[in-house]
């Protein structure tokens, strides 16, 4: 199982004329077996932090370790191959590829080049779809599915390769309340039962009850980090 450690990770963006710090030095340890929710107002840096954790964005400062290996300075291709091996992603929009069936979309995450899928892989994809309540949709085009079904298909895509780390950016924001609950239950189960690192970015309070750990960001800095009894927030910084 994976363990992530962030040491003074910061990120600046420049708009051409001036450099703006959108994430102040942050030190965090992320462990498997719990659902971590990253919350905060819009623009507080949640996506930036998640992108750095997900190796799709490089930090401007600081270091990040994945199981003691430093991963904050990998080149593009090394980062891509690590993403392929260890990470699953669920985006705000399901981002399924039109023209491929639901099953092909799920299998896409296994080898993006598009070799002929192994029979076991197909079986696994179909099992995942069934487990996520999408039985019978394997051969359907994504546009035939509802928003909630698409998001669940994208979770199947993230899970097909048993990622140690599952990163989700606002997975419920495009969904109605009921579908949102279904998706959160699935993510929670994956974190706890399958002992993975699961990080969910959300500013939707309805997501918080599912969190085992709630990290709040404001203006690019962590303002609270509470485990289990997060309802009684202990402010760690003001």
């Amino acid at each position, binding site marked *: 199982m994976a363990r992530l450690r962030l040491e003074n990770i910061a990120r600046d963006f420049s708009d051409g004329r001036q450099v703006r710090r959108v994430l102040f030095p942050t030190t965090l340890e992320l462990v498997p077996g719990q659902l971590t929710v990253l919350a905060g107002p819009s623009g507080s840096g949640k*996506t930036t932090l*998640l*992108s750095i954790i*997900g190796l*799709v*964005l490089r930090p401007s400062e600081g270091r990040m370790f994945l199981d003691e290996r430093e991963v904050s300075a990998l080149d*593009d*291709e090394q980062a*891509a*191959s*690590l*993403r*392929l*091996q260890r*990470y*699953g*992603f669920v*985006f*705000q929009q399901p*981002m399924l*590829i*039109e*023209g*491929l069936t639901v099953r*092909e979309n799920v*299998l*896409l*995450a296994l*080898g*993006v*080049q*598009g*070799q*002929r*899928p192994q029979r076991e892989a197909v079986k696994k994809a179909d099992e995942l779809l069934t487990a996520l309540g999408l039985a019978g949709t394997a051969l359907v085009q994504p546009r035939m599915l509802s928003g909630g079904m698409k998001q669940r298909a994208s979770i199947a*895509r*993230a899970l097909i390769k048993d990622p140690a780390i599952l990163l989700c*950016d606002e997975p419920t924001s495009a969904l109605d309340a009921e579908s949102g609950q279904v998706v959160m239950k699935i993510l929670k189960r994956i974190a706890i039962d399958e002992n993975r690192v699961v990080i969910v970015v959300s500013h939707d309070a309805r997501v918080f009850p599912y969190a085992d750990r709630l990290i709040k960001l404001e203006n690019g800095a962590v303002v609270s980090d509470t485990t289990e009894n997060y309802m009684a927030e202990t402010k760690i910084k003001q």
Partner: protein
Amino acid sequence: MVLHDRSSTAGALLGVVAIVFLVGQQLSVLFGLLNFMSVLVDHSGADAWVLSGNLRNVDAGNLISGRYLDRVIGLREVAWAEPILIGNGLFRTPDGSFESVRVVGMRRPRLVGGPWAFAQGNERALLDLESVAVDRLDLEKLGQPLPGTLTEIGGRRVRVAAVTDGARGFQGTLVFASLDKVKDIAGTPPGRYSAILVRFQPGADAEAALARLRAVLPECSVYSTADLSRLTRRYYFTQTGIGGSFGFSTMIGVVIGVVIISLTLYTSVLGRARDFAVMRAIGGRRWDVTVVVVSQTLIITVTGLFVGFLLLSVLLNATGRSAIPSYFPSFVPPILAIVTVAVSLSGSLIALREALRAEPAAVFH
């Protein structure tokens, strides 16, 4: 598992099909016209042509003296030499009107420089002094003269004895007749010809034989058949409006084709930038994405080429025996295919480079 988005694939495919078809059709007309230009030379069956000095094209009118014929035949390398005489005349149609024709006179009995394919009748019909052959495609223009019809060209009596197939010149209607008849029609002084056609002995060294001809005929122009064909085509191409303007419009067609195909594939790839960003984010290497783009481009282009060529061959079959110039030399399809593939690949790879420039983090927004 190659990605494809149906609507954009269909659009790109349609673009490739349309361009392959249009450019191919344009090229076939161009090559058809080129064939018309040198039709007599190409079908002469001769190895060399002797023309009056400084002539660069077989249709120019200067005549050559028959004295040279003996000199040519005297050479060891020469199997035979035959004169032809080309003149102009007015063909009287059955309804009494006149059509201007080019009359090609051949010497009996060999009839070198004469028709090579017949729709009705055969070469033997032309052995008669009065006999002429007109082309199938000109029958309507000439008032449908039935075989056996007696009429006049340039006021001289002729009998339509055969119908040729595909003898169509750039300079108008070709009628084949005997040498003496053409002499009569055109009023050429005796012992003068338009050209002497020479066939070398089997196994003779063509270059050496040509050199010998040039040595004994310093006053004449001596060309190999292939050279004369090229010169004639070039002459018409550069000196006449039709050849030049058609060549120009073909070139424009090709340029537009290149632009449209590369742009079509460029937009179709760029339109899927989001898909590629997703692939990158979930762990695809640049190489993986490139493989997907290249295979998709190849599928679209090869399918488009196939359909385009299919349509072209239908068109060529339909027009091949009509008056519309159309000819597709066998070296053209491979070149057209390679250029099309190269152009569509470069269009999509340029788009891909642009699409991959975006940070993979963009998928989170």
